[in-house]
């Protein structure tokens, strides 16, 4: 049947009087064959959103269906690649089109000519079902790719290919189903991006995603398989925080989705990650990274799809048993793409022009995070860290508010901290993590009972400081009693020496958990020791003048990550200085000589 375009309005195209298309089907639009997706089917009009620029499209041009929903191609070659929102490799497009992206480029997601050194893991006669690994191949020097039986296939292996070089289109084995039909399984498979990949069961959350960022790991931990949101106005360092997490978090695989963001930023990620050595393997970070770049000037419908493409790739690697972390920068741009398309469809808007289904779409996306037992029996996880760019830096806007309902870790970035160049500008009074209880057993087991207890004290101290600051703002700090002045001084050490972290300093850009613990211990030891001094009547100004606080502020730079033993020297020096101050005090106050015992 000949289906032709009836109307064109931005990325939205309609076809009249047709029943050839099904909902969510991928279609080719116009003579150029632009990629589109059916988003509404009606008796009169079928509506299609087009993932490419529609300039030049004419009424009467043909529209052809593909019979399948918009899908991602899953197979070796995904790693190290950089895709656009609908999984077209940008490197390949650049090879054909040059520096600018044209419309109607048809390229395969994965290089069909490249061969992979495949080792088969199944034998004829073997019973297999969805998720079982049929073959492995080294995808990069650090990632072993496992090719799996698709979730909807089960039966007996009837034929197996030889070990050796295969392309992604090669048939690796044939499976005869219970109904007698035979399915050929190729190295690469397809999966519709809007459908979550099935799992055997969801597992309870119990391991932190270690990021090496003190304010996150210590105060507001993210769990492996958890979902976190990083909201912040422009210039507060969302992207910087996302980059730091992508570089340093201990996931096996990073999927970085640049959704409607800056082109130069994607170039920066590309370049930095290829230069950055992976702390675990010593190889470039890119060996375990996938980038999806749909910058703000690329077509808006593909921006909407990019989030789903990203999460589908993440789930695929999760099913191989990897811990995957997906960074989405920024989910607000994705929500705006929804709004833009919804507006073109003339749907009834809800809050701020966003469609009424915004919350359900957000929920469906964040629910694809999780710690799971895969169909093949392995354990894997997908963690999602989504940046949110609130309009006018106002956290009460719909995207931030709805995101808050579906994530359990909320890292609020603060303009005033960013203005003072306090980075990461995570505001400790507005942020929260609901993963404490899930993760405390892990911290207790790996770092001892101190960690959780000290964290509690640190949070208490910061809360007390913000309370005192209210007073200080009104009447100055001079009128406070010395004990409260001390609280302010130590809280400053916590803020500057612990919470602030310098992404460009070699000792500070990543800090392992045990160093975080040591730092907390030293700071709180200082608090206890100086508190005793103040109780004895030593003025806070003298303690400050002795440089005790300033010394701790700089310890993050001075103690390398691999030499925690140096902390003992700090504690010792601290105690000595405190004893000195105390002795001086007692002398000055005419105290008895026994204080100078040593």
């Amino acid at each position, binding site marked *: 049947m000949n289906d*032709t375009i*009836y*109307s*064109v*309005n*931005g990325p939205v195209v309609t076809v*009249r009087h047709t029943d050839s298309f099904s909902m969510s089907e991928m279609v080719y639009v116009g003579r150029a064959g632009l990629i589109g997706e059916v988003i509404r089917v009606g008796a009169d009009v079928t509506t299609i959103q087009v993932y490419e620029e529609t*300039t*030049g*499209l*004419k*009424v*009467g*041009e043909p529209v052809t269906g593909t019979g399948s929903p918009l899908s991602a191609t899953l197979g070796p070659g995904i790693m190290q690649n*950089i895709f656009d929102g609908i999984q077209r490799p*940008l*490197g390949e*497009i*650049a090879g054909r*089109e*040059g*520096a*600018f*992206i*044209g419309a109607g480029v048809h390229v395969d997601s994965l290089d069909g000519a490249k061969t992979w050194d495949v080792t088969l893991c199944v034998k004829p006669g073997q019973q297999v079902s969805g998720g079982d690994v049929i073959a492995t191949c080294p995808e990069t020097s650090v990632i072993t790719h496992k090719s799996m039986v698709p979730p909807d296939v089960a039966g007996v292996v009837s034929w197996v290919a030889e070990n050796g070089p295969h392309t992604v289109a090669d048939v690796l084995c044939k499976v005869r189903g219970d109904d007698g039909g035979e399915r050929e399984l190729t190295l690469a498979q397809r999966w519709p991006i809007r459908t979550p990949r099935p799992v055997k069961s969801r597992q309870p959350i119990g391991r932190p995603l270690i990021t090496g960022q003190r304010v996150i790991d210590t105060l507001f931990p993210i769990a492996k398989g958890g979902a976190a949101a990083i909201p912040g*106005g*422009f210039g507060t360092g969302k992207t910087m925080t996302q980059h730091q997490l992508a570089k340093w978090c201990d996931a096996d695989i990073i999927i970085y989705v*640049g959704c*409607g963001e*800056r*082109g*130069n930023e*994607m*170039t920066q990620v*590309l370049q930095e990650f290829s230069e950055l050595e992976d702390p675990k393997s010593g190889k470039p970070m890119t060996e375990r990274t996938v980038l999806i770049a749909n*910058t*703000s*000037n690329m077509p*808006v419908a593909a921006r909407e799809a990019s989030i789903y493409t990203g999460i589908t790739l993440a789930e695929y690697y999760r099913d191989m048993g990897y811990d995957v972390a997906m960074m989405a920068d920024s989910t607000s*741009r994705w929500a*705006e793409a929804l709004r833009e398309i919804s*507006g073109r469809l003339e749907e009834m808007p809800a809050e*701020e*022009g966003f469609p009424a289904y915004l919350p359900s779409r957000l929920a469906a996306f964040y629910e694809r995070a999780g710690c799971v037992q895969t169909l093949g029996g392995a354990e894997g996880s997908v963690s999602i860290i989504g940046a949110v*760019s609130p*309009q*006018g*830096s106002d956290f009460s806007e719909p995207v931030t508010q709805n995101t808050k309902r579906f994530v359990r870790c909320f890292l609020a970035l603060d*303009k005033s901290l960013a*203005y*003072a160049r306090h980075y990461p500008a995570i505001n400790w009074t507005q942020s929260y993590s609901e993963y404490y209880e899930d993760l405390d057993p892990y911290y207790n087991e790996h770092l001892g009972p101190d960690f959780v207890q000290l964290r509690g004290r640190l949070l208490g101290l910061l809360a007390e400081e913000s309370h005192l600051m209210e007073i*200080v*703002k*009104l*009447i*100055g*700090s*001079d009128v406070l009693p010395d004990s409260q002045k001390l609280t302010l001084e130590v809280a400053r050490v916590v803020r500057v020496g612990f919470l602030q972290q310098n992404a460009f300093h070699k000792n500070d850009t990543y800090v392992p958990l045990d160093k975080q613990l040591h730092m907390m211990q030293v700071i709180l030891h200082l608090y206890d020791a100086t508190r005793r001094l103040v109780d004895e009547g030593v003025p806070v100004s003298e303690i400050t003048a002795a440089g005790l606080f*300033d010394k701790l502020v*700089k310890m993050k730079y001075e103690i390398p990550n691999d030499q925690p033993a140096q902390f003992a020297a700090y504690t010792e020096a601290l105690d000595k200085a405190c004893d000195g101050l105390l002795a001086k005090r007692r002398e000055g106050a005419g105290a008895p000589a026994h204080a100078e015992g040593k």
Partner: protein
Amino acid sequence: MEENSKWALEYLGLSDINGPLVAVDGLRDGGAGYEEMVEVKTETETRLGRVVALEGSRAVVQVFAGTAGLGLSGVRTRFTGQPMRLALAPEIVGRIFNGAGQPIDGLGPVYASRFDDINGSAINPVRRQYPRNYIRTGISSIDVLMTLIRGQKLPIFSGSGMSHNRLAAQIVRQAKLSDEAGSDEKFGVVFCAMGVTKDVAEYFRRSFEESGALARVTMFLNLSSDPIVERILTPRCALTAAEYLAFTQGMHVLVVMTDMTSYAEALREFSSSKGEIPGRKGYPGYLYSDLASMYERAGIIEGAKGSVTQIPILTMPNDDITHPIPDLTGYITEGQIVLDRYLDQQGIYPPISVLPSLSRLMKDGIGEGFTRADHPDVSNQLFASYAKVSDARGLANVIGEEELSPTDKRYLDFGNRFEREFLGQGADEDRTIDESLDLGWRLLSILPREELDRIDEAVLDAHYGKHGTV
């Protein structure tokens, strides 16, 4: 069935006229392409337009010069089969065009060596080159605290009545690619005026002329009295010219676009006449994507010698930085330079509000090998120390200056001198990076050394108190 653009049909009569939009009915299939150029002819003149929606046999056309004087009958419409394209040649440098890209300087048409679609295409991120080289503006606050990088888009957020035009003109006059003379790199300016008054356009022209820069400036002028719909094309024409000069002719192009607020308002007017569902404050829901389609045209591409750097200027309605225009701009651009009315009233020029200003790309384009090794430290510390000044001032307002602690008093002193001596500079004063950095150190040396917690001891040893006192 196949149409032939050379022999394209003319359609007689319109079926609807609404604001800048007209509807043409009775098109055969394939008669018009989305966003293609249209000629709307009356007996006396030909106006240009663009297809903005297609539905069945009806095409909705946006007429750039407005629809005044058009009637339903007697108008002939011709679809050209081409998107709007700009005539380009190396000789466009030094010329003046109107908002739709037609020469208005009386020097005749451009003999085009090529025609480019003014909508451009997205730069493939894998072919971008990460911007690393700075542009010296000679303005201390910008060079030290929010360094402009080649290939960056760094807007100026201002308000009506503030000195953004003076600042932009000074940047254009003083901008240098490198401190060393004799570099063979070509530098050019594309100036794009949207909805500015004749006086402002004239101010820029004169200021370029006086500094001898006019010969390297290409101007696109859509004045406030010009058709509003043309305003939507103006930045696109300007950027197409800039891309041509940068990526084909190998020039480093600085694009100054003023005033983006007028542009966004034109877009809102157009959107509402099309009957689109409004988003925040009546602006269309696609304002972000629309702004991005222009701002993202800044950059450097691999294998090309030139670069496109943008300085868009926008006046924040009611000085409100959370208004959709500055808000969405800030989310796309790589930083922002924010002007402050209080500083302006104090007579400080340029009245740059340091704390909310930022250059995202500067961290990789400054320091050793680019500006000076201590630059990142100075910049960080100035930001951090100046942030404390406002705390001290707040306190002084409440308890009085005399009651402040000695350190807080030093902060007050530092803050005042920083604003007067570091921010403040003459409209003709061109400071080198060294001068600016040394000045920064002199000011930092007002503060007690232990307050400088962003700087390594070794750097402090080398510079603290070593650059004289103020």
